Each structure stands twice: as structure tokens, then as C-alpha cells.
């Protein structure tokens, strides 16, 4: 199910890639994007700890942009 959904998304990306693309957000328009409040993981050490707690308490893993490692959380 998840793989089918991923293939569908890749197909959409491929279609868009066939047309010429110009950057629509210019470098001088990115001051808000560069603000610290726009970071997905502002403090890596704190975020990775919380991911570790999630991994220990839940069966799900991955899909969160974190690298992860073996922790003996079985």
C-alpha cells in the first residue's frame, strides 16, 4: 500500500520534471524560510532523543527523517 503510494508520487514528480522549471522563490525572498523557527529539527540532540522514546514505545519506525540505530528497545 505504502509502496504503491510512493510510486504514484514518483510518477507525479516525473511529469513535473518534463517541463522547464525556474526557481519561483528567489534567494532574496527566503528570509522567512531561513528563520530559526522554520527548522524541522532545530536542536538535533533533543529531537533525536524524542525519536528514541517514540521508537521504544511504538511499533512504528522510520519515515521521520531521522537516521536511527540499534538500541535494544525490544
Amino acid at each position, binding site marked *: 500500500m505504502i509502496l504503491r*503510494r510512493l510510486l504514484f508520487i514518483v510518477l507525479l514528480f516525473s511529469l513535473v520534471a518534463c517541463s522547464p522549471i525556474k526557481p519561483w522563490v528567489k534567494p532574496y525572498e527566503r528570509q522567512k524560510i531561513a528563520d530559526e523557527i522554520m527548522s*524541522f529539527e532545530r536542536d538535533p540532540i533533543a529531537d533525536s532523543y524524542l525519536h528514541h*522514546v517514540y521508537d521504544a*514505545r*511504538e*511499533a512504528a519506525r522510520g*519515515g521521520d527523517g531521522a537516521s536511527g540505530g*540499534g538500541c535494544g528497545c525490544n
Partner: protein
Amino acid sequence: MAVINRLLLLAFVLLGNIVHAAVLPDERIDLLYHGYDGGGAQIDGPSILVRKNIGASVSVAANYYVDMVSSASIDVQATASPYSEERKEQGFSGQYLIDRSTIKLGYTSSKENDYDASTYSFGIDQSFFGDLTTVGFGVSFGEDVVGQNTDPTYKRDLQRRKYSINASQIVTKNLLASLSFDSATDQCLNLTQDESCLNNPYRSVRYLTGTGGYLYQSERYPHTRNSDALGLRAIYYLPYRASVRVEARQFSDSWGIDADNIELRYLHPYDEQWLFEVKYRIYSQSGADFYADLFPYRDAQNFLARDKELSEFSSTTIGLGVTYKIPAGVIPWFDKSTANLYWDRFDIDYDDFRDARVSPTDFAAGAEPLYNLQADVFRFYLSFWF
């Protein structure tokens, strides 16, 4: 679940194509103290991260992390004795920036008295379209050795593999989005059919005896586990200086577990010195095919599990946090310093895991109250940029 499905699909279509200019991460030092308290388990300890650039193209980082565990969880109370142990983790990573690409290497080692894990990782990110789009892939290889304190001869080898694809996009001047797909495989090596390595060797399942009571036998898991996870994250800059982050994820594995979670976070700066965060997360999963709270008889099936993390349950998490920017000059040598305190409250309701600690004279086997767990998670840390 249907709502999350639609949200994910809609977001992917809107994205069109896939975010970040290729730059090295900040040079910084983080000192964290973490604490977990819930369900009879207390886990706390320090963590240190140091990240430094070497020249204009190389960044290296080292992390040291400790879990000090003191546990009398429901599993322990039902079939074992409270215990204390320590887990130490060391990680080293490096990034090499070359034009619009970043090459990443990493190594992590985790050790405790009955579990050793080593993980090697490699990844490449590439930015496109005037740095509006970043696409990356990664792979990690893990080798674990599972032991058991009461049996020095107990040694199980576990091999882990993970393959990842990530894409991120500057969608508008106010919106960032990121998509991640992970496919992971766990494989036990050199085991007989009766042995397993993916379960906790101390945990047991319970089964009915035929006389109204129950007894325990060891868990037995499949030798492999394959899982896929697809996650979408987006951050939006509000009309005033504050942001909203949304995260949604779908997960499924070869054990029959399907899971979804969605999280909403609001981040609000105040008076240049403060950042306040509020977060709400919901998570739900179905149970593994071979999970049962109470099996009808001994050896009722090939695989047997009674790990509450493999049962059907749902949970909510509320998080609050504050970051204080220490005025420049107060701490010399550093360009910027912050003090941070974050608290998360987990509330987990198990739909198929019963509290077997109650008296069998008050409750018949299989009629015990369902278990629920509340846990508090604290993170206090100091961060220094240089």
C-alpha cells in the same frame, strides 16, 4: 486514518516536485539531560553533541549518550524482578560538501549489559532548481548481538538494513515541506526455528491452563521483519513571526502492524529572547498477527508475542517547551547560547493488553482491566554556537 491518507496525497500533489541549499550544519555544542518516568520505569541520563567544521567543506560530529534505567514495568512485575541497567551510545558522523551535493557517513555504537549494536550509515543529498529542492538517499547497516543476563551462553545475531529516500522543497516564501520514505529489514542470523532474536528474551506470553487459570511460556517471534514508512512534514510561517509544523506518517510491516500518526506544533517567539512551543500528537496502531494477550493453550501457534508495543493501541502526546536565548557576552567564547526546557506527556491506552497484576480471585483470566500508561518525558539542555 482516511483523513491522514487524504492529507498526505493532497500535499504530495501540491508539492509537484520536490528542499535546502547545500550548506554545512552549524558548529555547536549541546549538553542535554533527559528523563523518562512512566509505567514503573525511570530512565534518565546525559547526552553531549559536538559538531565542528574542518575547512569550508567538511563537518564532523561526535555524540555521547547514556540511558540509566531503573525498571519495575508491568512486564517486569508480572514475570520478573525489578532491575537497573545502563546503556551507553557513541556516535560519529561526517559530512562532505561538494558543489550542490553533501555526502554523509556515520557510525553509532550502543552497549548495555545484554545488548550490543553497531550501525554504519551512508547518504547523499543533492539540491536542484536554485536550491529550492533537495533530494537524498541513505542506507544504514546494523549488526546487533542480543544477550541475556541470566544465561551467559545466550547470544543471538541480528542484522539490520534501512534504505531511505528524502525530498524537501521550498514551496512558497512561507512554506517548507519534506517527504521521507524508509524501508527497513531486520534479520536474525544462524538461529534454529525454536529460537528468536527480535523479541525481548525476558518476556513471556500467557496461556490458559484449562482450569480457569493461566501460565506463562517464552515469546517466539519470526526471524525477519520488514517495514515501510512514509512521512510528510511541512512548516508554515504565519502572517506574524510564528510557525506551525505538521507531521504525518503511515507505517506498515510484515508482522501485520499498520500505524498512523499526526502531529501539530506551534512555535512562538517572544521578545527576541524567548521561544515557546506547544505540540499535540496522536498515534494509533493495529496489533501484530501473532500477538495475543492470552493464548488459548500452550504453543497455540508458531509465533507468540505479548509485547504491549505489538498490541493494538492509541496514544496522545502533549508537549510544552521553552527556549531562552542567553544574552550575548554572558557566556564568553560563544556567538550564541540557549537554555531549553521541554516536557512531553504520553497517554497510551492499550486495547488488547490487560493488567495481569490484579488478583486472580477478583478477575477471571482474560477479564482483567485493560492497561494504560502515562509517561512524562523531560529534556533540559544547553546549546552553544561558535
